[in-house]
């Protein structure tokens, strides 16, 4: 229940992962897996994180990551993992 998928899409730049990870660490969110690709010059990253130890309300985390994305020029989405596993796994 506490697993969350964070996706980041945007123009590649220095320090994107660092800035996101700094935010997550500051909120006791543990990063379990990162995968990334570059599609047509666009940075495309997915993180599987565990928010179980975080005290930050989910809605606040969604909003703050969205703001952080705006600040660094990428789109950051934060969604509970279930929406993907239910759709793609039987």
């Amino acid at each position, binding site marked *: 229940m506490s697993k969350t998928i964070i*996706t980041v899409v945007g123009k590649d730049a220095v320090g994107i992962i660092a800035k996101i990870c700094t935010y997550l660490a500051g909120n006791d969110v543990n990063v379990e897996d990162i995968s990334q690709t570059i599609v047509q010059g666009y940075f495309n990253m997915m993180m599987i994180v565990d928010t179980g130890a975080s005290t930050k309300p989910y809605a606040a985390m969604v909003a703050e990551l969205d703001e952080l994305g705006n600040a660094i020029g990428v789109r950051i*989405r934060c969604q509970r993992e*279930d*929406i993907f596993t*239910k*759709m793609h796994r039987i």
Partner: protein
Amino acid sequence: MITILEVNETNKMIEQEKLDVRTITLGISLLDCCDADLDALNRNIYDKIAGLARDLVSTGREIELEYGIPIVNKRIAVTPVALVGGRACRSPEDFVEVAKTLDRAARDTGVNFIGGYSAIVSKGMTPTDETLIRSIPAALAATERVCSSVNVGSTKTGINMDAVKLMGEIVRETAEATKERNSIGCAKLVVLCNAPDDNPFMAGAFHGVSEADAVINVGVSGPGVIKHALEGVRGANFEILCETVKRTAFKVTRAGQLVAQEASERLGIPFGIVDLSLAPTPSVGDSVAGILEEMGLESAGAPGTTAALALLNDQVKKGGIMASSFVGGLSGAFIPVSEDQGMIDAVNRGALTIEKLEAMTCVCSVGLDMIAIPGDTPASTISGIIADEAAIGMINQKTTAVRLIPVIGKDVGDTVEFGGLLGHAPVQKVNRFGCADFINRGGRIPAPIHSFKN
């Protein structure tokens, strides 16, 4: 472990192909609200709805935010009001007061529609049923969010032709009562045959007497997702076409099932069903007609349309049924005209007539839906169309419905704007040959032979 490709596929469905959960509908029984005093009845109804639905909208928003999938509508369906108001409502005016209470409860809980201003008269009408039905025009004129439905037949009971006759008149009166707003009252009034007890979609949603005290039903959508998937198999044979619809419907339904379970858990209200329907909206790329055209038709309405819709409806069910633990409601493909830009275009280019739409209702999930017709269409003609649809439903053991809008003051060639999800519609030609002598016979059409299964 989930892969980046799968995550991107889901997010693309949501962001570019308009995947959404169309509605979370909270069904509420009002049977325990009955009272002989009208004020007490209204108070009981308001308190029960306001109490149970207090957190419906905020919970819907929470789920939307956490899973990143839009939940377009949050709605309420209640016990058919004719069953609840009998002791207190002596006149149509009394029932209108109940409609106003429902409207107030809907507004205060933040839902956009509340369904269940209804009567189930498949075999016969009680005096209370008839009083409620006669109050519908005034009730829909006096309220904003109330939806009304009347079930006039079923495979088990046959068709109540007295009710069919009356509903032709009521549809006309509703059009007159709301003529200042393009007869919009008729967009919130549907006449059904074989109405399900657990349909989450408006205007036909009500909370049947077979249901628990409160229940969460969810309607999924996703015509854009299906269309996009079919773009990838252009020219392929029917086996591949069907398989693609089925697989995609599975994915769409899984999202609906997840939302339904979450909503049920968070609200502490049992989960009822997922309705596997493809529900179009007027926005571009969210069209059932678009799917039919992607299958190879020049326009919706062309020869082949009924076959295309039949396979679509069937594959949506087959894909969806494995994705959900309980399916119900209407489940299939909706073909409303005003709510589907592809259908509107097909009518405008002369490819889609009411007669073709009638044929399509034999294989779609509902019926003649959101069709604007000339304002001078006689009540008996509307009743004739209702009787035809009810016959299709009765004989084919499926739900059928009629939601026609005789737009007062408008004629073929005019276009009517209803606004929002209700969309806009060209006024369509109706067969002008009369059927009054048929409709005026009265009585009922007996149940078909294949209904006797005991």
